[in-house]
């Protein structure tokens, strides 16, 4: 595979063979590195917790129960993330999906960042203008976005630990409006930008929204609450399936 990679990239990155660039062995190594760091962190934390648990008024068995319930609670959501990640493999390749969508970030932020970044170079994520160069720019933008999240965690956590949660108290009115407005503004704009592209884009957008809506609605029933975490995965796959059918039916020549 390395030989193919260097050959494919030698064209100056104008090729649309994203996966050749995305499967670069160094990217695989970095994805594995993130895995290793999280494993290391978990081991250090569990050791420290086991040692100090009695002082926190916690029995060793309560600690074990917490670990186990965390693990069990994560099975469903993890598999739901897996489904979303697999759908995004075609766009970003395995290493980037593992480190960005699987860990650190999430599908919404990272697909959004990637699309915003591609646009700054006059390209569209996933379309014919989505070359290796654009992939690299998008991957860079997603990663530095994730890095900023971690950076602000690194800076804010000690501050909040010392000063309680003053930050949130600064202005409760602003705290209740700004985050929601920022998120809705971002995702609505990203969605609206898809509308003029083609009728199939509109179809995909509508299908995805409808499936998500149904999942959330049905998920209100206690027995179907799992639908809420699977909603995103189902919505993406359904939208892609509908888009595929419309695409092949509408443009047989292409």
């Amino acid at each position, binding site marked *: 595979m390395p030989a193919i990679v260097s050959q494919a990239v*030698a064209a100056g*990155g104008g090729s649309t063979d994203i996966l050749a*660039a995305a499967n670069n062995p*160094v990217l695989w190594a*970095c994805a594995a590195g993130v895995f290793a*760091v*999280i494993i290391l*962190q*978990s081991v250090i*934390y569990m050791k420290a917790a086991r040692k100090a648990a009695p002082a*926190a008024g916690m029995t060793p068995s309560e600690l074990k*129960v*917490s*670990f*186990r*319930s965390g693990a069990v*609670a*994560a099975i469903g959501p*993890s598999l739901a993330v897996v489904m979303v990640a*697999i759908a*995004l*493999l075609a766009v970003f390749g395995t290493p980037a*999906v593992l480190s960005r969508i*699987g860990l650190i970030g*999430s599908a919404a*932020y990272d697909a959004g*960042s990637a699309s*915003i*970044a591609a646009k700054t170079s006059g390209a569209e994520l*996933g379309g014919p203008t989505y070359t290796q*160069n654009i992939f690299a720019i998008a*991957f860079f933008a997603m*990663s530095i976005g994730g*890095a900023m999240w971690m950076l*602000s*965690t690194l800076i*804010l*956590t000690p501050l*909040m630990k010392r000063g309680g949660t003053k*930050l949130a*108290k600064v202005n409760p009115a602003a705290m209740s*409006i*700004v985050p*929601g407005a920022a998120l*809705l503004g971002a*995702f*609505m*704009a*990203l*969605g609206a*930008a898809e509308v*003029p592209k083609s009728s199939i884009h*509109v179809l*995909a957008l*509508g299908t*995805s929204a409808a499936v998500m809506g149904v999942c959330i609605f049905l998920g209100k029933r206690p027995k179907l609450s799992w639908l809420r975490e699977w909603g*995103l995965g189902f919505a993406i796959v359904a939208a892609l399936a509908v*888009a*595929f059918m419309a*695409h092949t039916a509408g443009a047989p020549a292409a």
Partner: protein
Amino acid sequence: MSQTTISTSATASTRTSTTAPAAGTEQELAEFDRTTSRWGRLTMLAGLLISLAGPIYLVFFTGLEISAGQLWTAFAAVAAVFAVIWVVEPATYFPILGPAAMYQAFMIGNISSKLLPAALVAQNRIGAKPGTRRGDFAAVAAICGAAAVHLVSLAIFVGFLGTWLISIIPAGLIDVARLYILPAVMGAVIVQSIVTIKQPRVTIIAAAVAVLIQFVVLPVAPGIAFVTTGIAVAATILASWLARDRKPVAAAAD
């Protein structure tokens, strides 16, 4: 992001006033704090650097033709959209997760859909309140458990199975998935954020702003294509702030 409105002020006092029993236990807890904040920070910094190393290698060392200007523009455009969230999200989750788990959560990702539920289930299971010592320990152990499950399922289903899947899927199918992935993600994400943020006024403003920018402003000034999302975020925040409900924000906690 769903917990934006959780009252942060209530937990601030509980955290600082947790029982101060015998000196020995106090010392053990202090050591736990030291270990987790030192290693939490170190591992998170390592994760940050490794996750950046991949794209930096790809951009500068594989023969792609990308200018520094392109990278800065991409970063600026992404920052214009998500910078608010970078700061707000850590501040939002701190009261629930506690300082130690912060360094885990923002590296593992998918916090609201996976880690928070895992932490809450564990806290619930052993009857520990968020924001107390026991609550923090339960969250740490639960997140370790969730991380273990998540890493294993990602490695198996995305790393191995997904990569294999993508290698046998016909190229035509991959092209279609790539072409329509963005609307397929955004449709669901929009519905999800509307439901979790639960602010009809902000939702309407965000939708109006997105439509206005995409279909009125952009056709007049096509040069702004790459900053439209950033503009939409700023305009939504501003308009939502100006149009906010000016009654006392007592109800903001729910």
